């Protein structure tokens, strides 16, 4: 069946508060399936908050605006009405900047549960998991592609992982869950140059034409194999400028001075947010 409508993740005028402090002040963003977008911006500008809001973190309260998926049949699905796990089953994914450790739970067992739920969104707890044999084969193949040792699957989820191992584990989960839309929050941090290159290649291969990806990064290298259709710059809780890959290169080289000078209102918001954060810290 050919789809009449390209599948899209659409974020409109999104306002998000954490403990009653507004972090996002009206974000608009549209990502089509198969597109790569880069999201850059200084620390504290709200990039991670956007990722959490998309995934439905309970501490991030959406005060107004919408997040929707446009389905192939043209129907719009309200993401904000869903629990985080329902969002994952609807095809959303967040690669965490700081993944959580779950001691005692093996990567393989965790992923088998995750894969079973995401591939069969109607699955209820206690119902059959994906068959072990099939799962084992698939996991081993994906790990080989990512040049990960099979031993990794036996370790406890993120427990005692180095920064680099955590990021690779996030990419492995991305590969296994094959979402429609993924936010990768600084998946390059903690990786050395070779590992970033491998990550960049892997993400390109995993994503292909089927995944809409929002890459949050401070660096250019992750984008090497994932040339962004658009680069967005976030400042003071808003996307203030969007451009092509050349914008990412510029920001990487020159920093955010030009952006701050061009958008004094957002720069003022950035300062106010930083002061507020310092006061409540």
């Amino acid at each position, binding site marked *: 069946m050919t789809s009449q409508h390209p599948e899209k993740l659409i974020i409109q005028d999104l306002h998000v508060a954490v403990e009653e402090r507004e972090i996002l002040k009206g974000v608009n963003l549209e990502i089509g399936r198969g597109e790569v977008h880069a999201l850059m911006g200084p620390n504290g500008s709200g990039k991670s908050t956007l990722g959490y809001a998309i995934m439905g973190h309970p501490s991030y309260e959406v005060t107004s605006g919408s997040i929707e998926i446009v389905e192939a049949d043209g129907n719009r699905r309200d993401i904000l009405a869903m*629990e985080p*796990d329902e*969002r*994952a089953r609807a095809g959303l994914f967040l690669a*965490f900047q700081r993944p*959580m*450790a779950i001691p005692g739970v093996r990567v393989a067992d965790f992923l088998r549960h*995750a894969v079973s739920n995401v591939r069969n969104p109607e699955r209820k707890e206690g119902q059959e998991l994906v068959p072990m044999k099939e799962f084992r084969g698939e996991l081993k193949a994906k790990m080989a592609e990512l040049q990960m040792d099979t031993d990794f699957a036996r370790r406890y*989820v993120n427990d005692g992982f180095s920064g680099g191992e955590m990021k690779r584990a996030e990419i492995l989960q991305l590969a296994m869950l094959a979402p429609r839309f993924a936010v990768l929050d600084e998946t390059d941090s903690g990786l050395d140059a070779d590992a970033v290159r491998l990550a960049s290649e892997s993400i390109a291969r995993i994503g292909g034409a089927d995944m809409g990806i929002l890459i949050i990064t401070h660096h250019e290298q992750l984008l090497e194999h994932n040339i962004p259709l658009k680069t967005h710059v976030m400042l003071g809780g808003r996307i203030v400028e969007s451009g092509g890959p050349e914008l990412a290169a510029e920001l990487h080289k020159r920093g955010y001075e030009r952006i701050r000078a061009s958008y004094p209102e957002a720069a003022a918001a950035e300062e106010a947010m930083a002061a507020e954060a310092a006061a409540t810290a």
Partner: protein
Amino acid sequence: MSVSAPTTAFDVATLDRMLADAAFPEWERERRRQAFDLLNGLSLPDRRDENWMRTDLRAFKPSAWKLGGVAAGSHEIPSGLLEAAIQSAGGGAEAFDESLRETRCSRLAGRIVSIDGVVQTEELDEALRQQGVVFGSPERVLAEHGDLVRDLWFGVIESGCDWFAAAHAAFAQAGCVLIVPAGVKIADPLHLLSAISPGGVDFGHVLVVLGDDAEATVLTETAGGGPAGTAGGFHCGGTEIVVGKRAFLRMVNLQNWNTGVWHVARQKARVDADGNLQWTLGALGSRLSQVAQDVALAGRRAHAQVNGVMFTEGRQQLVYNTLQHHEAPDCRSDLLYKGGLQDRSRLVWRGMIKVDQVAQKTDGYQRNDVLMLSEQARADSIPGLEIEADDVRCTHGATSGRVDAEQIFYAQARGLTADEAARLVVAGFFQQVFDRITIPSVREALAGAIGQRIRRIG
């Protein structure tokens, strides 16, 4: 066996009736009379006693209980969790590692079932019987093999240390005795189910004796009684374990009473030179538990691994006093207790490693980890060391944690529901101790039962 009419309390008439009914040897009758005399001189422990200061016995009334059993067959016997797991073994969770596939036992070498202190079933493999293995109810074993057990029956645990110990020593009923002759290795587990009816009483006594070089696996479990808010039930038990030289015993005791049952138990193991004991306590049930679990490393190079898996909820209150007593040189003891607490429940662990002057090169370890699933639950971990030797390595540790909302969100972001995520986090918490339980069906029975109890974490 005839069944006595229920009588009240722990009086001399009850004792006389018990002695008249059973075919005990004379030494056993004398032992019980002495224990009864001890009992008469004791009152219930109070909070001035260090072992009992965290145990709330105010609502416990000895006069509320009737010894002597119900009429057999008048109550359905509740099923045992471990027994069910063994019988359904074969399926189970698949491991990611094909190499980790374990041989699973799906049969029992022997089984004993009692309800309210009345034995209903006694079975033992004929082949084992011919090898000299004795497994049966104490009433039968003491009558038929009295001389074999005379020195060990109530020779390991103390009878006079408190009211409950003395009451148990005088009125012990049902339970089991296992004697494995030197060199005999039993592959399949032996199983004891001690059940009670709602409001019922169990005074079961367990004696396990492994001769030199013997091997066995013993699973004991409890079930039944009434829920919290009813008469519940009363268990006053004792367990004695003797592991001979180079012998290996895997012992599992699961306390799975209904939530209205009072559970008081005194358990002690003695491990001889080069002997090896792997002893796992599981506790899910009871209204109040007070358990003394002692291990004596009595011969050189003896080894004991002690595992505890506790999950409490509602207003349950479980108190454990453990002792790892190093009486000989070069011994190792390693205790790991893990507890999960829900609702307003309370869990107390007080552990002691005691090292005698002769016990040089002792390697002793004790650790207690608790996971709090509610703000109202309370756990106390009180490790202790008492060391008289000068060349030892004794360490202890304790941790207390909560299920982290960020862990739940992380798992939810991967498609697990909040409930699934909570169960996974709790299962992970217990994994370290499950890894040490080498009997897959026991591990799965415990994990499954704990999983069922976990509600959404708030």
